[in-house]
């Protein structure tokens, strides 16, 4: 592990909302909420990003639009325009690449840059320049953290927001992070914080004092990761685009507002999700062996069910049949607790270039294969909405699915 690493974390401030506020001047200084929905006038969907003005009313990401509208009915509610946000992310990436090729796009609004081997100008100066360029060229603000590894750099960027700039050196590390609550640690959610609280651990310093053996016994491999993180240790590398490990899964989810218990309706939504997932898989040339169904019931009980098959597939029908079976097994639970979120993803992937061939089942369904090919080529040429299944005619309008964001293109 290199103790002298210098990692810069760039975290865009209220990213999607800031872009909308930049593009429409009278939205600035007003509460604005970007939603995962195609009808922001409705109460369906979830909050994607809230502007800082909207956060004053307690609106936060993942909250239902319904709840957000109760808290702040006079806010501006917009449907997310992800093409626009990705375009801005690509431009931020271009700015970062002026300084180093070692740039990792961590998510649509977060990037890491490894400045370890930059002696002149030093990492802090580069970070300042990046922050200024993003402001000047894109009209957007970001918070920057500089630290000896990705974990600390990310924590540093969250110290001061918006437009923050925080540098944490290895020497300052213990004094700064020890008194912080464990929730401030990257990867610790509400549930994990509760579990840690149950063993009397509330701060990062307290976590660092728990013997690693005990943590491992209680939390498995996560326990070891927790121990290292509490000491501020992290040797994960910055992985630039060209060295990425490739796509690990394709998934779509859909928030269902107050919840749906009707299994016929859920299956229809599931078909739409499977279509979206497999279409992207075919476009990228991937086949997968494991289908994962994700459910959240009554906004509280979230879990996944999966099934693996022997052959790789990207057939909508095949993936849907597996996902449908998984869903049918949950019907009893859903009848008691309506599903408030449903998602499907395909993992265990292999790329066509690495020898992925269609399964015998796909080949036997010759007519469907030909139809899929024809439909895909129509969509490639004219866009995704040019042709849809009859059973999904109103689907997009009612349930907006959220694909994984891709930076390429």
């Amino acid at each position, binding site marked *: 592990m290199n103790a002298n690493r210098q990692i810069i974390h760039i975290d865009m401030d209220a990213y999607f909302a800031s*872009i909308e506020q*930049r*593009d*429409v*001047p*009278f*939205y600035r200084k007003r509460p604005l909420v970007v939603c995962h929905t195609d009808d922001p006038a409705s109460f369906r969907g979830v909050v994607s990003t809230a502007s800082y003005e909207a956060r004053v009313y307690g609106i936060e990401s993942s909250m239902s639009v319904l709840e957000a509208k109760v808290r702040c009915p006079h806010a501006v509610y*917009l449907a997310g325009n992800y*093409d*626009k946000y990705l*375009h*801005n992310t690509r431009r931020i990436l271009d700015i970062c690449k002026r300084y180093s090729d070692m740039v990792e796009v961590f998510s649509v609004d977060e990037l890491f840059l490894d400045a370890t081997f930059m002696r002149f100008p030093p990492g802090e100066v580069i970070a300042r320049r990046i922050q200024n360029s993003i402001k000047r060229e894109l009209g957007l603000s970001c918070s920057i953290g500089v630290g000896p590894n990705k974990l600390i750099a990310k924590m540093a960027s969250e110290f001061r927001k918006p437009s923050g700039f925080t540098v944490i050196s290895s020497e300052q590390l213990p004094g700064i992070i020890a008194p912080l609550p464990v929730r401030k640690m990257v990867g610790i959610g509400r549930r994990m914080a509760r579990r840690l609280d149950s063993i009397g651990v509330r701060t990062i310093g307290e976590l660092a004092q728990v013997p690693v053996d005990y943590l491992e016994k209680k939390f498995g491999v996560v326990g070891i990761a927790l121990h290292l993180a509490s000491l501020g240790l992290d040797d994960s590398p910055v992985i630039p685009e060209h060295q990425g490990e490739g796509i690990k899964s394709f998934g779509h989810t859909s928030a269902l507002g107050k919840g749906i218990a009707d299994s016929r309706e859920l299956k229809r939504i599931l078909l739409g999700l499977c279509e979206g997932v497999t279409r992207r898989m075919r476009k990228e040339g991937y086949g997968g062996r494991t289908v994962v169904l994700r459910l959240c019931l009554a906004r509280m009980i979230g879990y996944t069910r999966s099934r693996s098959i022997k052959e790789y597939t990207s057939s909508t029908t095949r993936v849907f049949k597996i996902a449908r079976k998984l869903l049918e097994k949950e019907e009893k639970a859903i009848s008691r607790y309506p599903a408030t979120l449903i998602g499907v993803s395909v993992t265990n992937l292999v790329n066509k270039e690495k020898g992925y061939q269609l399964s015998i089942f796909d080949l036997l369904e010759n007519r469907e294969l030909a139809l899929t090919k024809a439909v895909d080529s129509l*969509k*490639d*040429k*004219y*866009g*995704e909405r*040019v042709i849809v299944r009859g059973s999904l005619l109103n689907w997009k309008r009612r349930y907006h699915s959220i694909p994984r964001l891709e930076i390429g*293109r």
Partner: protein
Amino acid sequence: MITEIGETIDVSAVFLGGHLRPVSFLWRSRKYKVKEVFGRYHDYLGKSKRFNFAVGTGSGDVFEICLDTATMTWELIRIHSEQ
């Protein structure tokens, strides 16, 4: 208030410093002069690349317009109005 329009418009534009910049547009027989470009991005509809702009005409409203390079037509997508 957001008003969805989705109508074809005539646009005068210039190429400036390697960028396309709309100068004025004609919508429902009225000419609007573009005073400011607040935001721009491109996306794809199938194989067609589209250039999108959020422009101000000095009236306070913001117009979202888009050039579809497959058909070489401009569209007024929506208007954001303050009231």
